[in-house]
């Protein structure tokens, strides 16, 4: 069961600002999602290897070659969506 304080914690981890109204609305909804997934617990997985990846593939590699497959962006392109920039850097509020 997810309580309101779990939701607040998840909101904080995702940097989402949740209103009181949001919290009331989403707590039961998330619980019903969890209940639904809970049905999987009923399957007997005693002799099943854990699945780490759903694709039947492994070992996809890239050679150590510069600018393959793609060329880098220019500094201007890289910064083009930045809300704040300075001297070629992205600029963000201080984090501590």
């Amino acid at each position, binding site marked *: 069961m997810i309580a309101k304080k779990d939701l607040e914690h998840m909101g904080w981890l995702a940097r989402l600002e949740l209103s009181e109204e949001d919290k009331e609305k989403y707590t039961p909804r998330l619980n019903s999602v969890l209940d639904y997934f809970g049905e999987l617990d009923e399957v007997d997985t005693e002799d099943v290897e854990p699945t780490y990846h759903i694709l039947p593939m492994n070992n996809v590699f890239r050679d150590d070659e*510069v600018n393959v497959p793609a060329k880098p962006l220019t500094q201007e392109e890289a910064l083009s969506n930045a809300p704040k920039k300075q001297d070629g850097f992205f600029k963000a509020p201080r984090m501590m």
Partner: protein
Amino acid sequence: MYENPDGVMIGLEVHVQLNKLKTKVFCGCTTDYHNDPPNSHVCPVCLGLPGALPVINKRAVEAAIKVGLALNCKVEEHTQFYRKNYYYPDLPKGFQITQYDFPISSGGYITIEGEDGEHRVGITRAHMEEDPGRLVHEGTIDKSKYTLIDYNRSGMALLEVVSDPDMRSPKEARRYLDKLRNILEYLDVFDGNLEGALRVDANISIMGGQRAEIKNISSHKGAERALLYEIVRQKNVLRRGGVVVLETRHFDEAREITMSMRSKEEAHDYRYFPEPDLVPLKISGWAPAIKATLPDLPDAWRLLFVEQYGITDEQAKALTSDIRLAKFYQMVVQNRDIKFAQLAADWMSNVLKGELNYRSQTFKVFSEQEAPKCWACGEKMVPSDRYLFDWNGILINDLDTFKKLKEYLMNNYGAFWVNNAPIEKDDAGRTIKISVENYSISLILDDTKNKVIVKFYKGGTYSLSLKKVNDRLNICEDIFYCNNCGASRDKNTTFIIKVEKPSVPEAEISLIDMLKALDFFENNKISEDDVLKIMRTILQKQIPKEFDVEKVDKIVKEEGLKKVEGNIVEAAALEAINENPQAVADYKAGKEKALNSLVGAVMKKTKGGADARTAREVLLGKLG
């Protein structure tokens, strides 16, 4: 047995950049960004733009396995990546791609020189991950309003090497870091001279108490200082009757103190889950194959040096403490006898290394990752090559080609013994061998790699490049070339002395400089003090390249050192005459052989290095 009076327990988490790779771990952006503007080597993958897909660099996996094996770890046959979720401006995706339950290697150890002799430090794990971007704080970290971010570093291949809490003093921690760095450099996966190459977080507790985690340590000396400070701080807390709390502290390198981060104390909640964009690695069979090609590590080189060159274990330890110094030493002595090897070991392990340490200088060897600046005009140089000779010319016994090959070996490696040595070839025409008595050089053609391997018997191995032009097999030497002014510099035989202070220019010492200085000394043309003076002059000032070929000659001339030659022998001869009146009397009475004992006395006084003929002449002059 070390008693560890304060019950100190130190464990280190070291982030190592695999900076000898050409590209980052999940994209093709270059790792050669150190001298370039911020955010100029970034792409949708390393900027974390939506929809970009990472693909892993195969050589990064190989390098990680190499390190795991060298640290005596078990290498996992199946491994995979996870997302570690957290928000921080240096991590544009909101998660870091790292490893979790099956790190690529775990359960190894490093042997260090501990407080009580050889000491083993356990390696918990060494896992692969991506480097975050670089944050630049305006002002100090606790005061600045803004953070500036450069993502050039974002996506560099990192190994996080986590040790067991087995170190019992800051000194042991420093030795562990020195040894780790040294091993990584011998493996050729890492260049510790590059900024940000190695970063350390340290966990430390005393008297069985709670541990503090110290972040933001960027040097070996810094680690030692941060830990020393932290021991005093924790002892003071206990003395005042307090309790050391589990917390993260920040090391302020300038003030040499640690500060509590005082962050909101929330449990780490990284919500690891398998990275869906990267498929698992099934790499059974890789580790044994890589193990077979693993280069010799420092301890193996040390034993080899002792055995081959008859030097002391102490000298060998000092010479192998940095692979560049080890290679330089090998290069200096590979064409000389044991006596010279011992003389060189003394000077290089003791004086040269001491002078470098004293000035906080280190050796640096330029690679494709960081080409040097031009000595003449300051522009960045580029890797290039210089034609030496045609391999086929050797096969058809062309005398001019023989001469070119021999001149190259003499002028670049000081292999003067090749001058009159015969050149042999194998039937397939793929190996050329030049040898006399105790010396030999083999050149081996490897046309799959377009290289020629030059191998000195009991010495180093170097490579030349091979260029096929029509029916010629042109052998070329790798150099750095300046496109701007046409200047060049050798790649194999010049060692650059890097100074930690960026304001001081780099100096360079070449094989020929070192050989010349030691030769002058060995032949008693200069004194011990003068060798020191030559070394200091080379280390202190950058001498313009136009004088470079004769750098040591120039110093000798400018400083008036050569005059000393006559003086030393002269003084020794005078002393010998005064101290051996009987021999003098015998000689004057016509016993020619008495002169030999005087020559012997002069040789002894000049430490056996004096030229016997010169000594004889000087003595004859004095005896009139």
